C-alpha cells in the first residue's frame, strides 16, 4: 500500500523474520501481488501468514487446499439441499425464490467481501490439481469472480494480502507463477535457529540450547532419511527434553539422544537414526 507507508511488516511476537523475507513481503504488499512461498516443510511458510496478520492487525483467512478441491468450493457454495428442503417444508424465514440467500461464501469469497483488508493464506496449493491453479488465474488477475447461479460478479472490497504456499519441489504452472512474487525459504541456519528457539523458550538454558541445536543439525545430516526433522520437531523435542526432569544437556554431547521419536516420525527413519545414535556414530 504505497499510499500508506506506515503499514509495513516488521515481524511478530512468535515469528523470527529475516530481513530478506520482510523486504519481499513488503514489496508484494506494495505491488498488491500474491506472494508464493516454497521451502521444506517446517521452514515457517504457514507461520509467516499468521505473523503478518498478527503484525498488521488484519484478520487471517486460511484456505487449506485439499486434493479434491475445485476452485468454486473456495469461492462460494450454493446450498441446493437447504433450498430444496425449504421449498418442501417452507418452515424457514429464507425466501426460497431468492437464490442469493442460499449462496455461502467460501474462504476466498470471504476474503474478497470482508469489510476490511484481510490476509488470505492459500495453504499447500500444490495438493490440488493443476486445474485449480489455472482457474485461480482469472480470479487473482481481476480480483473478482462470478456467481453463475445468480449471474452476479463479486469484486473485492479490499484487496487481501495473499500468501500462497507450496511444498512440492515441482514447479507450479508458468502463467500462475507469472502472477506471483516468489520466495524460497531456506532451512534456517544454526544461528537463525537459536533465535527461533529463543522466541519460543525465552527462559531456555544456554547449555541445553547449544547441545540441542548441535545434535539436531547432526541428525538432520543423516544419510538416507526420508523425512528430515524440521523446526516444528526441534521445538517439540526441546519441549520434551525440558519436561524430562532427569535429563541433563551433557547427555547429548555424550551421544545419548532421548525422545528420538519426536524428531523422526517415519519408522524407517527412526530405526536408522536410533541405530546411528546407539552406535555412537553421531559424535
Amino acid at each position, binding site marked *: 500500500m504505497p499510499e500508506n507507508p506506515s503499514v509495513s511488516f516488521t515481524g511478530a511476537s512468535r515469528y523470527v523474520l529475516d530481513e530478506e523475507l520482510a523486504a519481499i513481503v513488503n514489496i508484494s504488499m506494495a*505491488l498488491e501481488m500474491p506472494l508464493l512461498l516454497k521451502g521444506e516443510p517446517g521452514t515457517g511458510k504457514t507461520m509467516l501468514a499468521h505473523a503478518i496478520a498478527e503484525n498488521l492487525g488484519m484478520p487471517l483467512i486460511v484456505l487449506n487446499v485439499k486434493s479434491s478441491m475445485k476452485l468454486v468450493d473456495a469461492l462460494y457454495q450454493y446450498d441446493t439441499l437447504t433450498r430444496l428442503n425449504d421449498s418442501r417444508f417452507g418452515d424457514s424465514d429464507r425466501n426460497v425464490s431468492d437464490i442469493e440467500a442460499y449462496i455461502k461464501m467460501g474462504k476466498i469469497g470471504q476474503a474478497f467481501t470482508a469489510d476490511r483488508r484481510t490476509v488470505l493464506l492459500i495453504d499447500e496449493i500444490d495438493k490440488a490439481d493443476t486445474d485449480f491453479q489455472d482457474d485461480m488465474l482469472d480470479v487473482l488477475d481481476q480480483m473478482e469472480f462470478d456467481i453463475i447461479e445468480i449471474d452476479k460478479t463479486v469484486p473485492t472490497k479490499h484487496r487481501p494480502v495473499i500468501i500462497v504456499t507450496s511444498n512440492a519441489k*515441482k514447479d507450479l504452472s508458468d502463467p500462475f507463477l507469472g502472477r506471483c512474487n516468489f520466495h524460497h525459504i531456506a532451512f534456517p541456519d544454526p544461528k537463525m535457529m537459536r533465535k527461533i528457539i529463543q522466541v519460543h523458550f525465552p527462559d531456555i538454558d544456554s547449555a541445553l540450547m547449544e547441545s540441542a541445536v548441535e545434535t539436531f543439525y547432526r541428525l538432520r545430516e543423516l544419510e538416507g532419511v526420508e523425512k528430515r526433522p524440521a523446526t516444528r520437531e526441534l521445538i517439540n523435542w526441546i519441549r520434551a527434553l525440558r519436561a524430562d526432569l532427569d535429563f541433563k544437556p551433557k547427555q547429548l554431547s555424550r551421544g545419548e539422544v532421548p525422545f528420538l521419536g519426536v524428531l523422526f516420525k517415519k519408522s524407517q527413519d527412526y530405526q536408522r537414526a536410533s541405530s546411528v545414535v546407539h552406535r555412537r556414530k553421531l559424535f
Partner: protein
Amino acid sequence: MFIDFFYTLKDSGVPVSPTAFLTLHRALKTGLIGSLSEFYTAARSILVKSERYFDRYDQVFAHTFAGAELPDLEGLELDEMARGLLEEWLRNPREMADALGIDEEELQRLTPEELLDYFKARLKDQEGEHHGGNRWIGTGGTSPVGHSGYHPGGMRVGGVSRNKSAVKVALDRRYRDYSLSGPLKASMMNEALKRLRHLVPTGPRDQVNVDATIYQTMKNGGEIEIVFDRDLKDRLKVILAIDNGGWSMDPYVQMVQTLFDYARAQFKDLKTFYFHNTVYDALWKDPSRYKQPVRLEELTRYDPATRLVLVGDASMAPYELMAREGSIYIQERSGDPSLRRLQLLAETFDKAVWLNPVPQSRWDYTQTISIIRDIFPMFELSIDGLEDMVTHLMSKTTS
C-alpha cells in the same frame, strides 16, 4: 533501466518474462527499494519463479553489479563432465592418458585450469564424432566435484568481489543446492503419479447425487426423492516390471525402490515382476528371478487395458537384445530374440512404457536404448519424465 541485467538473465537460461520486468519497475517506483541489497531481494522475488534458478540469478547478479566472472553457462554440463575428467585424471593420470591417447608428461605440466580447458575441448570434439562406449566419461560426469581442494594451487571461484553486501550474498551462491535436480522422493512421486487413475463407480450407493435428486424431485412434483450414487474408486490395472539384475542398475536401486514402494501403496491392482536387462521367455514374480516365472504367453491373457510399465536402464550388449539365443542365462532359451518378445508385450498392451533411470541426455550414447525406444515410448525416471509418462498413459488415443 537494468535492461542488460534482464537480458543477461534471459541468456543464462533463467526464464524471465517482460511482464515480470515491468512489475520490477513498478516496484522500483514504490520507493521501497533503497539499496542494492533491497534491489537484490526484490528483483529475485519478482523475476525468478523457482529456487532452481536462484543460483543462476546469484551469478548473473554478481556479474552485472560487480563484474564477477560469468561462467560459461552453455557449456555447464560440459563443465561438470570436464571436472569429472579432471578428478579422474588426478586419481589415475596414467590410465587417463592412455584412454585419451595423449602423453602423460605433457599434461602434467598444465595447471588445473588449463587441464580443464583441454578436457573441455576434447569433450566438444567427442560430442560430434564419438558414440557409445567409453564409460568413464558418463560416470565421471555425474560425480559432483567441488570447486577447490583437489590441487595444491586451488581453483579460482567467483571472481572479483567488492564490499557490497548484496553482491557478497550473491557471490556466496547459497542456492547452489537447489539448482541440481534433487533425489526423487515418495512425496514427489505422489505429485507426478496422482493423475494416473481410472475412476469407476463401485461399492454401496451412499453418495447423494444432487443434480439427479433435484431432477427426480421436480418430476415427482415436489415430493423429495433422493438419488444415491456409488463412490468412485480407482480401478486402474498396472503391471510394473523392474530390471533388478546386474550392476548396471545398482546406482538407481534407491530410486526404483521409492517408485516401487509408492506404487505398492497407491495402486489397488498392481502386479510386480522382475527381469534382468531385457525380457525373454518370462518375467519373474520373485525378486531373485528363480522360483516363480510367469511366461509371457500368460501375460497376453491379461486385460489389454492394463498399463505396463517397464523400469530399467535398457543398457546391455546389443546381442542380448537382437540375437536369438541372446540371454546371458543358460536356462532361458526361447528361440526368439528378446526384441521380438518386447514387441509382443508392446502389441499386447496398448499403454506400455519404458521408464529409464538413466538421464535422457545420455540416451543417445547407448545403442540398446535407441532400439528399445523404437518399441516402447521411453520416459526418464524423474519428476518431469513421470509426468510425461502419466500424460501418455492416460491419453485416449493409442500410440
